[in-house]
C-alpha cells in the first residue's frame, strides 16, 4: 500500500509539473517564443530592446552585390522594440487594446512572445524577421497616426473635444470630422492588422484587406533572402494598408461597401497605389530608392523614386523636360529599359517620382524640412483619396447643398469609382492639385512659409510629368456651374501646359491596316475556364447563368461566337494620333442608350460618333444631352428580320418575337439581356498605352525579336451567350471607349464651356468614342 501511495505521489507530482510546464510559453524551438539570450550569445540587449536591420542589407553594407549567404548579424543593430510580452503595438486606434501584431507566418497561433523581455535574435531566425518587421511597422504606424492627427489639425484647427457642434473646417476638406470621436483617436480602425513576417511564399508579398493581413515571402531562387529583411518592403506593403484606410476615410463604418485601389489587373488606379506605396517608403526613410535587397539584388526589380537615380536610362534626369513623364514612361522599367512592360509597379513610378519632386519643391519654396514636406504630401494624398473614394457622394465637408458631388450618388458610387469614372492618372492629379491649391495656395491660410505656394508652380511641376491633363481644378465637381461664382472652378493656365498632351477621342480607332482584324474571339475552353476561375476567386466575376454548364461544354474553340459559350472579345485598337495615348478603357457595361421601351437610341452628331441605328432600322432619336443616372440598358441589341425591314431591337423585344419564355433567359429575372451579356466584373478592358500610329500589339512588341505581347484577362471583355439564341442571329454591341490623356473624354466643351463632364454624363455617349461590334452567332 505504501509503495502504491508513493507511486501515486510520484505520478501526481509529475503530472503537476507537466500541467505547470504547459502553462509556461514554450521556449527553445517553438516559433512562438524563444529566450533570446540563448540565441544571441554574447550580444546582449536590454529588456525591451532587440536586434534589427535599420535599413535593408544592401544599404547597410554598402555592397550592391551582397551575397544571400552573408551573415546579416554583422549588420544588425540594437533598437527599442517593446516592453510588452508580445509583438503587439498600441497606437491611436479606436477601441482596440492594440492595432497591429507581428506573427511568424500564417500558421502561427499568436504574436511572438518573449520570455525574458528581450528581443535579440540571430538574423537567420524567424524571430529576427518578426522583430525587424515589428520595429519598422511600428515606426511607420506611429508616423502615420501622428500625420493623421496633424491632418485633422490642418483641416479643423479649432476643433475641441467634445465638439459643441459640427466644426467648420478652414478649407473644404474631405476629412469627415466624425472620424475622430476623441482626441487623436480615429474610427475605421476596428480590426487588427496582422503582419506575417515570413509567410513562406515564393516571390510573394501582399496586403489582404479581407482579414487585414500583410504577408512578406522570400525570393524563389534564393530562399534565404527574405522580403522581411528589407525595411522598404515593410513600408511599401504597409503603404497599401494605409491607402485602403485613406481611400475609405469617408466610408469608415465597418458595415457596407469599401473602395479598393485597382482591380487586381492592369489599371491606372492600381498603378497609382503602387506609386504611392513606393512614396510611403520614402515618407518613412527619406530615401529615393525602393527594395534594393528584396527586389533589386536578386530579381532586378528595385525601383527609383527620382530621376537622378543612376539606375535610370539615359535621357531621364530632373531637368524639366527630362522627367519620368506620363504617358511616355508608362510601362518603363529601368532594369530593362528597352522592353516595354505592362505592369502597375513600373507605371506607378510616374506617381512616386512626381510626389518626390513635389516634396522637394515644397522644401525649397516653402522652407519646409523634408519631414514637414513629406508629411504635407501625405496629408494631401489622404485628402485626395478620401474624396475620390467617397461612397456617400457628399465629397467634401463644405458641400451643404444636400446634392451629391462625386461618384454619382449613393448606391451607384462604387460602380462609378470602379468603372464609369474611375480613379486614373487624370483624376488623381486633378484632385491632388486641387488639394495643393486650397491648402498651400490659399491666401487665407498662408501655409507656405507665411505666404502662398504659387498656382503656376503646381501646374508647372504637374506638366513636367505630363500630368496637367485637366483644364480646371474641378473643385465643385457635380455642383459646378460655369460662370456662377459660388460653384465656379478655378481654371488652369493654358500657358503652363507645355508637355502634357491632350488628344481627341476620335483618334482612337480600330486598326486601319488593310486585312487587319479589328476584333478577335477567344472561345478556347481551357483559357476561358481558367480565366473564370481566377476572376471568381478574386471576386470580380460573381455570377454566371445557370444555363451555362460549368464545364463550358458549348465552348468549341472555333474562334467564333456560338450559342451557349462564354467568349472573350479583344479589340485591335489603333492610336491614329502623333502622340502616345495611355489608360485606354473599353467599357461594355450597361448605359443610357435606349428609350423607355428599350429601343436603341440614335444620337445626334453632337452627342455621338455613331448615329446608329437609323430610324428605319429601329432607332429612336434620343436628344437629351444630359443622360439620366437611373436608366441603364445592356450594350447589345439584336437584328430582327421583319416583314418590311430589318430592325435592331432590344433583347426583350426579340424574346417576345421568338415567344421564348423568360425562364430561358440568361437571368430569368431580367429579360433585358436575355440572350447575350457582358459578364459583370469582366465588362471592361484596359490597355496601358498605345504609341503614336500604332496598335497595342506593336506598342508592346519585343523590340529585338518583334514578338507580340500576350494578352491577359484585363485586356478582354467576357460575354456570355445563351444556348437559346438561334444560330444566324446578328447581334450589335455598342461599346464605349476612352483614354486618360483625352481632350474630349473629360472636358465638356459644349454646354459646360470646358468644365469637366458631370457624373451622370458618363452614363451617356458624349464623353466616349463609340465602337460597334456586329457579331454573327455561328453554330
Amino acid at each position, binding site marked *: 500500500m505504501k509503495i502504491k501511495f508513493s507511486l501515486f505521489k510520484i505520478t501526481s507530482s509529475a503530472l503537476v509539473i507537466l500541467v505547470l510546464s504547459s502553462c509556461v510559453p514554450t521556449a527553445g524551438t517553438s516559433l512562438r517564443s524563444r529566450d533570446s539570450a540563448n540565441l544571441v550569445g554574447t550580444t546582449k540587449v536590454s529588456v525591451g530592446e532587440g536586434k534589427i536591420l535599420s535599413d535593408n542589407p544592401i544599404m547597410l553594407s554598402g555592397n550592391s552585390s551582397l551575397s544571400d549567404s552573408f551573415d546579416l548579424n554583422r549588420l544588425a543593430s540594437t533598437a527599442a522594440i517593446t516592453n510588452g510580452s508580445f509583438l503587439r503595438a498600441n497606437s491611436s486606434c479606436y477601441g482596440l487594446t492594440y492595432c497591429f501584431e507581428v506573427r511568424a507566418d500564417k500558421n502561427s497561433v499568436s504574436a511572438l512572445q518573449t520570455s525574458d523581455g528581450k528581443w535579440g535574435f540571430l538574423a537567420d531566425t524567424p524571430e529576427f524577421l518578426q522583430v525587424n518587421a515589428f520595429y519598422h511597422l511600428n515606426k511607420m504606424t506611429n508616423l502615420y497616426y501622428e500625420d493623421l492627427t496633424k491632418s485633422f489639425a490642418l483641416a479643423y484647427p479649432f476643433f475641441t473635444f467634445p465638439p459643441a457642434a459640427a466644426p467648420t473646417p478652414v478649407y473644404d476638406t474631405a476629412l469627415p470630422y466624425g472620424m475622430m470621436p476623441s482626441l487623436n483617436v480615429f474610427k475605421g480602425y476596428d480590426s487588427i492588422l496582422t503582419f506575417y513576417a515570413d509567410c513562406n511564399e515564393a516571390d510573394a508579398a501582399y496586403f489582404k484587406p*479581407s482579414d487585414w493581413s500583410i504577408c512578406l515571402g522570400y525570393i524563389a531562387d534564393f530562399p534565404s533572402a527574405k522580403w522581411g529583411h528589407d525595411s522598404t518592403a515593410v513600408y511599401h506593403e504597409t503603404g497599401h494598408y494605409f491607402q485602403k484606410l485613406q481611400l475609405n476615410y469617408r466610408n469608415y463604418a465597418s*458595415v457596407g461597401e469599401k473602395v479598393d485601389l485597382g482591380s487586381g489587373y492592369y489599371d491606372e488606379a492600381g498603378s497609382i497605389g503602387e506609386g504611392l506605396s513606393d512614396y510611403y517608403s520614402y515618407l518613412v526613410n527619406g530615401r529615393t530608392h525602393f527594395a534594393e535587397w528584396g527586389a533589386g539584388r536578386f530579381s532586378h526589380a528595385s525601383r527609383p523614386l527620382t530621376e537622378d537615380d543612376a539606375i535610370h536610362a539615359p535621357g531621364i534626369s530632373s531637368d524639366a523636360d527630362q522627367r519620368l513623364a506620363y504617358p511616355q514612361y508608362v510601362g518603363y522599367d529601368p532594369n530593362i529599359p528597352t522592353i516595354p512592360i505592362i505592369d502597375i509597379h513600373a507605371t506607378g513610378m510616374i506617381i512616386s517620382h512626381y510626389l518626390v519632386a513635389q516634396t522637394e519643391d515644397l522644401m525649397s519654396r516653402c522652407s519646409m524640412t523634408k519631414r514637414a514636406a513629406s508629411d504635407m504630401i501625405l496629408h494631401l494624398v489622404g485628402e485626395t483619396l478620401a474624396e475620390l473614394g467617397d461612397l456617400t457622394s457628399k465629397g467634401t465637408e463644405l458641400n451643404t447643398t444636400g446634392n451629391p458631388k462625386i461618384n454619382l450618388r449613393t*448606391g451607384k458610387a462604387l460602380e462609378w469609382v470602379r468603372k464609369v469614372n474611375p480613379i486614373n492618372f487624370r483624376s488623381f492629379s486633378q484632385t491632388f492639385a486641387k488639394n495643393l491649391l486650397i491648402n498651400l495656395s490659399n491666401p487665407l491660410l498662408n501655409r507656405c512659409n507665411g505666404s502662398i505656394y504659387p498656382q503656376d508652380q503646381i501646374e508647372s511641376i504637374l506638366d513636367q510629368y505630363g500630368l496637367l491633363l485637366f483644364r480646371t481644378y474641378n473643385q465643385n465637381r457635380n455642383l459646378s456651374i460655369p460662370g456662377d461664382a459660388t460653384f465656379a472652378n478655378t481654371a488652369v493656365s493654358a500657358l503652363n501646359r507645355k508637355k502634357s498632351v491632350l488628344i481627341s477621342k476620335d483618334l482612337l480607332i480600330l486598326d486601319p491596316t488593310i486585312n487587319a482584324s479589328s476584333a478577335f*474571339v477567344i472561345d478556347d475552353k481551357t483559357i476561358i475556364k481558367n480565366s473564370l476561375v481566377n476572376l471568381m476567386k*478574386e471576386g470580380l466575376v460573381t455570377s454566371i447563368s445557370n444555363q451555362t454548364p460549368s464545364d463550358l461544354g458549348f465552348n468549341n474553340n472555333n474562334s467564333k461566337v456560338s450559342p451557349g459559350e462564354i467568349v472573350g472579345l479583344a479589340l485591335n485598337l489603333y492610336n491614329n494620333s502623333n502622340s502616345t495615348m495611355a489608360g485606354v478603357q473599353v467599357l461594355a457595361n450597361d448605359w443610357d442608350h435606349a428609350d423607355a421601351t428599350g429601343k436603341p437610341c440614335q444620337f445626334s452628331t453632337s452627342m455621338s460618333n455613331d448615329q446608329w441605328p437609323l430610324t428605319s432600322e429601329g432607332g429612336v432619336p434620343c436628344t437629351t444631352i444630359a443622360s439620366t443616372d437611373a436608366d441603364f440598358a445592356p450594350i447589345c441589341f439584336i437584328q430582327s428580320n421583319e416583314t418590311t425591314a430589318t430592325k435592331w431591337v432590344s433583347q426583350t423585344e426579340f424574346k417576345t418575337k421568338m415567344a421564348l419564355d423568360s425562364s430561358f433567359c440568361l437571368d430569368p429575372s431580367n429579360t433585358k439581356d436575355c440572350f447575350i451579356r457582358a459578364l459583370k466584373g469582366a465588362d471592361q478592358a484596359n490597355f496601358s498605352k498605345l504609341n503614336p500610329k500604332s496598335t497595342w500589339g506593336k506598342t508592346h512588341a519585343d523590340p529585338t525579336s518583334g514578338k507580340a505581347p500576350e494578352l491577359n484577362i484585363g485586356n478582354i471583355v467576357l460575354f456570355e451567350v445563351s444556348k437559346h439564341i438561334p444560330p444566324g442571329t446578328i447581334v450589335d454591341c455598342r461599346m464605349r471607349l476612352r483614354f486618360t490623356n483625352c481632350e474630349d473624354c473629360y472636358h465638356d466643351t459644349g454646354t459646360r464651356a470646358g468644365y469637366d463632364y458631370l457624373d451622370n454624363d458618363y452614363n451617356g455617349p458624349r464623353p466616349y468614342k463609340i465602337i460597334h461590334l456586329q457579331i454573327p452567332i455561328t453554330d
Partner: protein
Amino acid sequence: MKKLWLFTLSTFIALTIAFYSKHPLSMYSGQGNPAWKTFEKKSNNLISGHTATVTELAAARIPLAKREIAHDKNQYSDSFSAQKRNMNYQYREDRILIGDVQKNNYQDESVELEMINRPSSNWKDLLGNDLIRFQYEDTKVMIKEEYSVIKIQSGRGLYAEQVLVTFFSKNGNTSSYRALVDAESGQIIETWDKTIHDNVRSSTPKFTLPAENNSGIIAR
C-alpha cells in the same frame, strides 16, 4: 478507490491541459463554427454544403484568435439573428441600415419603406452553389455571415447580407473578399476588400491572340 478516482481525474485533467496548450488547433475554432459554411464541389453535378469544420478553418488559416480580438464583437457572433446593436448604426427589423439612410428616419418602422426582395432561408446555399460551380473539384469555398443589413437605394430597401468569401484550394492557396449579397436570391451585388499582390513574377493567366479573325465580327 477514492485515490484511484483522484488519480484518474488528475491524469485526465493534466493530459487535457497539456494537449490543448500545445496543440495548434486550439487556436482555431474549438468546434465547427455555424457562422461559416463550406461548399465543396464533389463533381460537376454534385455540390455539398456543411458547417465549416475545425479542420477546414485551420486549413484555410482562419484563426479564432484574430476574430476574438477584433473590436466589433458582434460581427463574430455565432448568432446573427441576435446581433448586438451598435450605437454607430441605425437599425430596422434587427438589420443595420446602409445606403441612403439620411433621407428618412427608417429606424422608425412606421415610416414606410418599400422592399425590393424578401429574405430567404437558403440564400447562403444559393450563393455557395453559384461560387463553387465553376471552380475545379479541388476547391472549397467558405462563406461567413458578418452582418444582416437593409440597403436603402432610391427610396427602396433591399434585404442583404454582408459576407466574407474565402476560396481554399487543395494546394493551400487561399483568396478572399467581402461581398454584399441579395438575401433572397443569394446573388452578389458588390464585392470589395480584394487582395493586392506585389508578386515579383506575375501569376495572371496569359494567352496569345489568335493568328487571324475568323469570327465574322464586323467592328466599326
